[in-house]
């Protein structure tokens, strides 16, 4: 057996412990080389721990209550988080017997502008909301195309700057759904029942680090400055989402929301990594090819697919028309996929709505648009039946 109690082994070889660490009240394994380590001793500092504990919990509760009051006075109300877990809970419904239903996918316009209660009233069935803000519909479209449980009707929202560029801010959510573990599901279940319905502060937009980063720090010369998108919406338990009232009512906040979008319209000077127009065209073609392949799979098993271009306005619409002209994108998409599509410019009843920050409808307007849209969708799907598999 090796002699292993030498005081000059690896971690203990610097100096004898007693010389370098006077005042230590506890030895650790690093002080006892080559021996069986004894049961650790942990001391409890002599303090009135009951008083400390009660004081801490009461103070923490008061601080949390103060934060809650602050955010409520700011205009926030308790709502459900638009989290990966919430999305996965809705996605799971397709694999749990609701695969024949209408499913909405796309970006934030589908999320904010289509109101599930109104759809339910008009069509007799509440759709499943799977749209993801800042994210092309493609990852979810391909995921559903690969899921034989889905045989229903699929509304695919097309926000040109996202869909044809392949931008996926929340593309990881599909992977999350397929790998979601028991803890994550339980956490989602607990959060959606114990926290989210009751606390307005429980919103990623009000998280401590986000609030700190949002303060008016002096700009660092030469560093890119970009304002992240602020809270724009409020969600229900099944991800039915509408625009946050503050965007409609608070002129300053609305101006900020618009300013954030304008960052997209006037990007920084092109650098070597920015795609050229030809490259952008190639990327758009790639997205369309992927969409066509997914649509073919879906239609082969009798699922109906319809593309949807919801309204945008003002500088946002001008930007989209400039960067992703309809003739080179939307029209090609419909032609290559062979699927029907509804473009708001083609239907008078889908025009003339109020879009406070140019990209999404106000909550009441979203209800009006949904009511107008449902009959159009029904008519289009009737006109383009898919043969049963």
């Amino acid at each position, binding site marked *: *057996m*090796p*002699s292993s109690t030498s005081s*000059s*082994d*690896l*971690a*203990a*070889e*610097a100096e004898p412990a007693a010389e370098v660490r006077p005042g*230590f*009240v506890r030895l*650790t*394994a*690093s002080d*006892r*080389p*080559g021996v*069986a*380590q*004894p*049961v*650790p*001793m942990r*001391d*409890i*500092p*002599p*303090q*009135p*721990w009951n*008083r*400390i*504990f009660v*004081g801490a919990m009461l*103070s*923490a509760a008061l*601080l949390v209550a103060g*934060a809650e009051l602050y955010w409520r006075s700011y205009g926030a109300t308790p709502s459900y988080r638009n*989290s990966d877990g919430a999305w996965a809970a809705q996605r799971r419904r397709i694999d749990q017997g609701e695969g024949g239903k209408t499913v909405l996918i796309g970006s934030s316009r589908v999320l904010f502008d289509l109101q599930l209660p109104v759809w339910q009233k008009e069509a007799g069935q509440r759709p499943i909301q799977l749209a993801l803000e800042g994210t092309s519909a493609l990852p979810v479209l391909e995921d559903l195309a690969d899921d034989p449980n889905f045989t229903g009707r699929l509304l695919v929202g097309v926000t040109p700057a996202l869909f044809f560029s392949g931008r996926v801010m929340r593309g990881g959510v599909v992977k999350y759904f397929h790998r979601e*573990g028991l*803890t*994550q599901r*339980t*956490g989602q279940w607990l959060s959606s029942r*114990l*926290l989210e319905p009751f606390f307005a502060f429980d*919103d*990623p937009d*009000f*998280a*401590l*680090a986000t609030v*700190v980063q949002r*303060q008016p*720090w002096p700009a*660092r010369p*030469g*560093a890119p*400055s970009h304002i992240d998108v602020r809270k724009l919406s409020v969600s229900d338990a099944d991800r039915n989402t509408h625009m946050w009232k503050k965007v409609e009512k608070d002129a300053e906040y609305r101006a900020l929301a618009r300013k954030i979008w304008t960052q997209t319209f006037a990007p920084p000077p092109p650098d070597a990594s920015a795609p050229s127009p030809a490259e952008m065209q190639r990327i758009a073609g790639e997205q369309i090819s992927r969409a066509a392949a997914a649509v073919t799979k879906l239609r082969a098993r009798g699922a109906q697919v319809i593309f949807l271009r919801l309204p945008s306005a003002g500088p946002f619409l001008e930007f989209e028309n400039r960067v992703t002209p309809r003739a080179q994108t939307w029209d090609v998409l419909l032609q290559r996929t062979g699927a029907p599509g509804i473009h708001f410019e083609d239907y008078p009843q889908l025009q003339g709505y109020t879009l406070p920050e140019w990209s999404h409808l106000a909550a009441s307007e979203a209800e009006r648009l949904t009511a107008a849209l449902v009959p159009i969708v029904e008519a289009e799907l009737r006109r383009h039946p898919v043969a049963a598999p």
Partner: protein
Amino acid sequence: MVFNSLTFVVFFACVLALHSMPFGWTTKKVNLLVASYLFYAAWNPPFVILLWVSTVLDWYAAQKLVHAEKPSVRHFWMLLSVIANLGMLGYFKYGAFVLANFTALLSSLGVAYHPPAFDVALPVGISFYTFATMSYTLDVYLRRAKPATSFLDYALFVTFFPHLVAGPIMRPTELVPQFAEPRRATPDMLRFGLALMTLGLFQKIVLADSFLARAAEMIYDGDKIPGALDSWVATIAFSGQIFCDFAGYSTTAIGAAMCLGFAMPDNFRFPYAAIGFSDFWRRWHITLSAWLRDYLYIPLGGNRHGAARTYAALMTTMLLGGLWHGASWTFVIWGGLHGLYLAVERLLRSRFAGYRPGPSMLVVLGLMTYTLINVTWVFFRAHTFGKAWIVLGGMFGQNARAAPILPTVHLVMVTMIVGGILLAHWQMRNRTLESAVARVPATVLSGAWALMAFAIVMAQGDGHAFIYFQF
């Protein structure tokens, strides 16, 4: 299940409630065992089988070798345990790495080899519980410890949820005896344990995840070339992040065990106040460095066979210690750098044996140690050597024309938080947390606890996994 999740809060409340019920001690231990399996199964239920295999194998091997009369038979059972444990670890953790390097080697020899995809999920915490169970067989083999008399106590030692997935790496002699007699936390143990859990979660959720991680990500995961300031700030941000992440886990684990009436060993001792690298390794991930010392460095000869053998043992230990952290050459380099630092330090100590630095020189040496440790963190954090060289180039003035990347808020927050950590470590370098807490007025403690709890709630962490889970 991660500590920083709502699920764990409910789970732990249930475990505490069960543990305080008037059940018999054996029933309570069974409860803890089942709870620990649930804790582990929450990630991936099939991997519980690996935990069982590791548990049963080492239990059986220890029983066999302790009853064996012939040295060769004892040797056989010890080797069987080591090979089986390292084999399991090797397959799951290093299989893809070995295959990729083998393929690259063949390719360099002109042989085109296309192996099938090696897509095996890494069981969380396998490096930790494998080392824990191996220490059981090895301690029994080395006659440092007697085998456990109760399989339940032994299985609970392996599986006990506070240390299961990310340490501290417990030795059987530290924990098994604690299961022999009924244990229940006193009210003060419970409250101090909860305070430790709050401190640990504050380090993880607020400091590491909310304020330090982003600066490191922007430089290490971005595609822009960083200049000197960005490279240094990102690297010291990572130094703070990994400390708060891992020490936060250890503190939470120690607190959770204390709430149940059990004691777990220190895993960190204010490491950024280290003066020299042997001092650093007595303060950083203590249970791993002590494990490597006892079961690798000393068996390799330690410092008992001349200078050359000592340096070889030192370097081998640190290289393998690096590889333990992850199946990548960047981790090997990280370990190699620490081995080199330790070797140079040893050489200098022998050359200047009579030198005793004054107080100001101690500060200089402490800062030098921290700076050199930051150089090693570059290899630990970077996913590729290419990225590591780019960041190192930035740190040492090679990217002079790089445009600024990090915004002011990150520069300020990282400097404040990591500066605060360094000052706190320096103040605490010869003390324990408990000795400091004992001298603080109760109202200040109450206020600090409340602020940490408030910050945890406001940070709204979304359950980021602890960095060391991947190891």
